[in-house]
């Protein structure tokens, strides 16, 4: 009785004000990597790359004079050629010489299981037999309180949960305006890794690749973007790259692929399960 009264007093004194706003805070946890040994080595974080040439360029006040034109420029002379000179086509070169493309392809997918080769009828028959077998077995072992349907649902849910756990498959975002925002990302889900590590790694990747990205902004629309998908190994080596969302401008897409090809190597990801980078190259004509 006394205990009940005490609890009633306590609940009356602890009023919860539901009108107060609630804040969600993304804690950046710079936890060591999964491998304790690696964490103890205390590898220094890769130094931020130097500022890009275009950014650091100072205004050159000095002017450079150019060599004078030929002495005969003011003389009247016949027009040597017309502007519309013959265009030289080299379609053969365009089409056959692309050895780089082979290197950029993503690694081949593992062969699919042979079960898929079964015909529809065979598959149905096999599935029916399996179901019958399962029902018999579960009928023997299952508790009488649960129906067969419930058991089946549980089995499906369990299987899916196991698959989800095994895949990991989180998609994080960094350095942009994509889902999850600049520093956040889609949660700290199944892998249990802090989004802070991903965000920091994303910033490092961004700076390294951007440094190697050369493209003239003059004359190009600013709303141009291409998304590449990069495969990296645990050492940070770029093992493959492909265009997943082209910009519609081949030259622009090539410049992004070239930047990735020149980068070759990135710092090892601190999250071991990270093996895919989706990088969107956006063009902006930012006045220097």
């Amino acid at each position, binding site marked *: 009785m006394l205990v009940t009264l005490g609890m009633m007093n306590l609940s009356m004194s602890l009023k919860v004000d539901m009108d107060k706003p609630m804040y969600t805070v993304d804690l950046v946890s710079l936890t060591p990597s999964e491998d304790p040994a690696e964490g103890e080595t205390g590898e220094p974080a890769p130094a931020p790359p130097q500022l890009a040439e275009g950014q650091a360029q100072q205004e*050159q006040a000095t002017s450079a004079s150019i060599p004078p034109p030929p002495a005969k420029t003011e003389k009247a002379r016949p027009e040597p*050629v017309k502007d519309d000179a013959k265009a030289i086509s080299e379609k053969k070169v365009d089409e056959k*010489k692309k050895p780089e493309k082979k290197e950029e392809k993503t690694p081949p997918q593992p062969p699919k299981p042979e079960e898929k080769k079964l015909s529809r009828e065979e598959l149905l028959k096999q599935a029916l037999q399996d179901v019958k077998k399962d029902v018999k077995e579960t009928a023997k072992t299952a508790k009488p309180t649960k129906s067969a349907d419930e058991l089946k649902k549980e089995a499906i849910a369990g*299987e899916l949960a196991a698959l989800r756990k095994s895949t990991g498959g989180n998609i994080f975002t960094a350095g942009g305006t994509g889902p999850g925002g600049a520093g956040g990302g889609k949660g700290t889900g199944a892998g249990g890794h802090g989004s802070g590590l991903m965000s920091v790694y994303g910033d490092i990747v961004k700076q390294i690749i951007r440094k190697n990205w050369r493209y003239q902004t003059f004359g190009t629309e600013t709303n141009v973007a291409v998304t590449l998908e990069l495969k990296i190994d645990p050492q940070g080596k770029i093992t493959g790259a492909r265009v997943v969302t082209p910009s519609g401008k081949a030259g622009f897409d090539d410049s992004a692929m070239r930047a990735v090809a020149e980068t070759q190597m990135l710092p090892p990801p601190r999250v071991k*399960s990270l093996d895919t980078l989706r990088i969107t*190259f956006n063009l902006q004509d930012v006045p220097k």
Partner: protein
Amino acid sequence: MKLKTWLLTCLLVMLVVPAAHAGDALSVDIFGPGQNKVNILVLPARGPNGPGSSALATSFGNYVQSDLGYLPFLRLAYLNEILGGDPSKGLKADDVDFKPLQLGRVDLVVTIGGRGQEIEARVYETYTRKLLLGKAYSQVDEGGVAHVADRFCAQLMRVLTGKSGFFDSTLAFAKRVDGGKELFTASALGRGLTQITRDGGFNVSPSWSKNGSQVAYTNISDKGHRLGVWDRSRRVSRLRKFPGNVAISPTYAPDGRIAVALSLNGHADIYMLDAAMNPSPHALAPSWGISVSPSFDLSGRKMVFCSGRLGGPQIFMLNRDSGSVERITYEGTYNTRPSLSPDGRFVVFARLTGDGQRIFIRDLVANQERQITFGPGNDEDPSFDPDGYFVSFASTRNGGTKIYVTTRAGDAAKQIPTGPGDAMAPAWGVAPALD
């Protein structure tokens, strides 16, 4: 029912299993390239007997290299940056080893070949080995090789940027002649330098009509101010006097009419002239202070100008649809000679600073301002090119007044050859250079 459930399970499993070994993915956004310059290498010109054996092709290559140096979005690479030197055995892609070029971070490579009066030139993208541009020219002589090189570079600029106004336009400017000033024209590379007026006195403030057929200017002599109009087709100029004895900074509007500062009411205001050269009854953006130096965007709806209506000279913009006037410059006490980019987004102007006159640019969209020239001496009379990217101006930085070109991003300025004597007040026009 059970069968359906089981089939659904199988389907889900089949969909998920291929990704069973997928790891985490990270999405990264990169905004803007790290380098705004593309590296380009002009390989030594080849003749029938190897590199350098054709003097004409070698001369063509030198002009191409010089021309490309004007384009601030290109960085000229040199052979000593390439491992193993010249990686080419010929002119076509099969004859070029692109690997050392890729290692040397060369993005574009130019191959040039010549035989007799024929010249071939190609530009390849080194990463994909794509042919970006290939041209063959015949009947080229030494006198015309510079012109051919200019045309090739204009084509390349068009391929890379979609624009080629720098090569396809002409500058008009004033030069000192016999104690006075006369108007000259030349290409942006200084080719085709031609004196177009012989009026006597001082001809200043040239402005091209939008189709490049006429140049309007001010003639100042012992007869006072007169408005001059030079006609390209007839190669003659006519001078016209206005009441008030003032005719300053005439400028062609996109519709072909001339806006000029006249002193019809005791002080200079900007008036539009009709086809018969009669001023409009009302001034554009009238005020009690002087207004001069009009400049229009391509639509003709926006006009920037310099006015002392609030005290010292500042830059203002007139919206010709609404009649509203907006002040553009707030920094500095002496801002003059505005030039509006064709798209109406940027205004360049000269500002008097503690170190002399300097060119500044104001982005009307981003509402930001920055300096794009840095002297020494005085930098004045800025003018946008037809693409709204290059900016020409006059400067005393190397002794005497010469014409230079930079970009709206403030790239390193390069001098335009205009021959001996001072040159000033450059104005871009879309007309090709005179023969």
